């Protein structure tokens, strides 16, 4: 009994399809977003996240239609991110049926957008996505925020940034290790623990999941409130239910 740790399948979407690649390269088609969302819902996913990875602004409306279709059939929380720059972008996604909107790069260049969006729509629907890479090793490790798919350093400390985002009104942090993304070697547990301990809002661990034990490690060792994974679910390697059974076996509260 008690609040369950969440498992959140994540779908990268472009041109109306779910795709998967390693750090935005070698994209593989994984299927129709509505169909995949329904399958994850049936498997017991606690929430779903969609990231619109469309590079140009041409096809932005496509994601709105997808979210509308998913929200009419799947009744669990939906988070949408990618290309969110101004509060009106947040409004459009919420109106299409998103429950939360994830802000990433825009927050780095203009932190005020987080405050404006939280003031207007409520903290409960504002997720700030943080992409971090380790830059200092040893006894006092440090992680820095990177933008542009992990290519551009910003000089911003990830832990301090998470605290700042909380202060501006973020309701949740989606924390991705760019070192681990696609590597299948597990979450960066030190990063996850450092951020989770530094803020009072929930932290979603992301980047690096290769097997189901990694998900449990993110919760038990990293202190994550939720774990996000994409490829291990997309290609049928594992189901969400199997992931929850492993977590339950390790003593983690899950919704089964």
């Amino acid at each position, binding site marked *: 009994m*008690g609040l369950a740790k969440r498992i959140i399948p994540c779908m990268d979407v472009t041109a109306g399809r779910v795709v998967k690649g390693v750090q935005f390269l070698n994209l593989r088609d994984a299927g129709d977003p509505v169909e995949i969302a329904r399958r994850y819902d049936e498997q017991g996913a606690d929430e779903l996240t969609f990231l619109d990875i469309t590079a140009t602004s041409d096809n932005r409306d496509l994601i709105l239609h997808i979210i509308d279709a998913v*929200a*009419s059939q799947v*009744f*669990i929380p939906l988070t949408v991110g990618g290309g969110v720059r101004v509060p009106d972008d947040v409004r459009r996604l919420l*109106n299409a*049926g998103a429950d939360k909107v994830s802000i990433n790069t825009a927050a780095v260049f203009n932190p005020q957008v987080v405050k404006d969006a939280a003031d207007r729509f*409520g903290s409960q629907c504002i997720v700030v996505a943080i992409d971090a890479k380790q830059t200092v090793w040893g006894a006092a490790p440090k992680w820095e925020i990177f933008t542009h798919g992990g290519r551009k350093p910003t000089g911003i400390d990830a832990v301090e940034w998470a605290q700042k985002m909380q202060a501006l009104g973020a309701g949740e942090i989606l924390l991705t290790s760019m070192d681990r993304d696609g590597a299948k070697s597990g979450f960066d547990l030190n990063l996850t623990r450092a951020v989770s301990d530094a803020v009072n809002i929930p932290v979603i661990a992301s980047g690096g999941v290769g097997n189901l034990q990694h998900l449990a490690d993110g919760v038990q060792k990293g202190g994550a*409130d939720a774990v996000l994974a994409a490829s291990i679910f997309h290609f049928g390697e594992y189901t969400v239910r199997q992931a929850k059974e492993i977590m339950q076996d390790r003593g983690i509260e899950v*919704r089964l």
Partner: protein
Amino acid sequence: MIAVVDYGMGNLHSVAKALEHVAAGQTVSVTSDPAVIAQAQRVVFPGQGAAPDCMRAIDAHGLREAIQAAAETKPFLGICMGLQVLFAHSAEGNTACLGLFAGDVQHFGTELHDGAGERLKVPHMGWNNVRQTAAHALWDGIPDGERFYFVHSYFVVPEDRSIVAGETDYPTPFTCAVARDNRFAVQFHPEKSAAAGLRLLQNFVTWQP
């Protein structure tokens, strides 16, 4: 017709979509028009955001009387902030609320820990168990202890314990559902709680209090 009260606070599309899914043959109207609310057979009163903003928005839309009248006379379902502002007072921004239930709304605090010493985050966000502390038509077909989806930092403290219909632990018990006569209100989001949530909404659209 089922009216979903729209006063500009939060995502009403999820609520409307879920109601449309379970209310075959009934029209679902997302509205800020007091006349439509007055005509509706049933009223759903959702809401997200902060209590002071919600109360200001209710008055800015001229909806206070329509909401109070609906809560007195017809099947009425409050969700999330639509539960909290039914009470007399909220600690969030020291706000006077609608006062349809005696009691107030309090914050979880910032130093919560579970039995293992791990910090419990605020907002209370995710799927938690709901103990049905009183039998009610809206619990029909839903197992006691079923999980529902929550996202909130404040919780209601009713003065009259006889209205409590459900409780959840975080880590101590708080009231997550209240019921009296034609009114039922919940802290969690049935529209986002998969099969159990849809069942509760289905129970509401057929409820004859």
